[in-house]
């Protein structure tokens, strides 16, 4: 069996560096002949995943992003060596609860990632978080 071709990226924690991840995903999406819509959805999910790793993980180290290319799907892993969290404890945001209330306006990232990708999984403990998300080639989501 051949190893799936993988693009790996190691990003320093600097403002707007998530754009390197989206630029990379755009080239990979084109290479895989994904649609423009799919490519946009992947970029948006990646931005949110990178921002979370940069901001919430509190890691001082780099963030790793792996793009694993196969015929039918693109698998992306966003890996930080930060403090970890329990994704099952994060509540789903509703705009009605945010407008004209004291609830913080933020908190959309995980929900966007789940809506935009075909599958999303977290492995997280005190040594860090690995977010694995998949975009299937033949899907409209």
């Amino acid at each position: 069996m051949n190893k799936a071709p993988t693009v790996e990226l190691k990003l320093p924690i600097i403002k707007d560096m998530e754009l390197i991840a989206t630029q990379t995903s755009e080239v990979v999406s084109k290479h895989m002949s994904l649609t423009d819509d799919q490519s946009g959805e992947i970029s948006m999910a990646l931005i949110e995943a990178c921002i979370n790793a940069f901001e919430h993980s509190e890691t001082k180290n780099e963030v790793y992003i792996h793009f694993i290319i196969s015929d039918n799907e693109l698998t992306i892993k966003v890996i930080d060596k930060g403090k970890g969290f329990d994704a099952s404890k994060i509540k789903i945001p509703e705009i009605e609860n945010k407008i004209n209330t004291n609830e913080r306006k933020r908190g959309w990232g995980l929900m966007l990632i789940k809506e935009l990708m075909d599958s999303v999984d977290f492995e997280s403990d005190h040594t860090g978080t690995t977010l694995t998300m998949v975009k299937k080639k033949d899907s409209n989501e």
Partner: protein
Amino acid sequence: MSKVTNTKIVEDIVVIATEGYLNKDLGEEIQNIAQKYIDDGSSIFLINLKDSKIVNSIGASILIELIEQLQDIDGQLVFCDLAPIIEKTFKIMGLTKYCKVYPTEDEAVKELA
């Protein structure tokens, strides 16, 4: 890297045009500019995102604050020229329940004026 490129008043509508990544900084820049016009009595705002192809949820969240503020003065926030992924993002977040989205600036102005 990203910025507000133009602000103008067309038929009482404040039109704010941007360029580049709609992140926290650009969200705050829009918010600050809008604040000045609100203080001067404006209440209808059109954000033209033609040259902004990508957004993050932090930038979008700041717009929620603007929606809230405009509700208090019976104002309105609308968008035009959204890249498909930005429109989709605003839809998932529910922003589009509060803000109309127009294909072009002309169409937005025609309807709102």
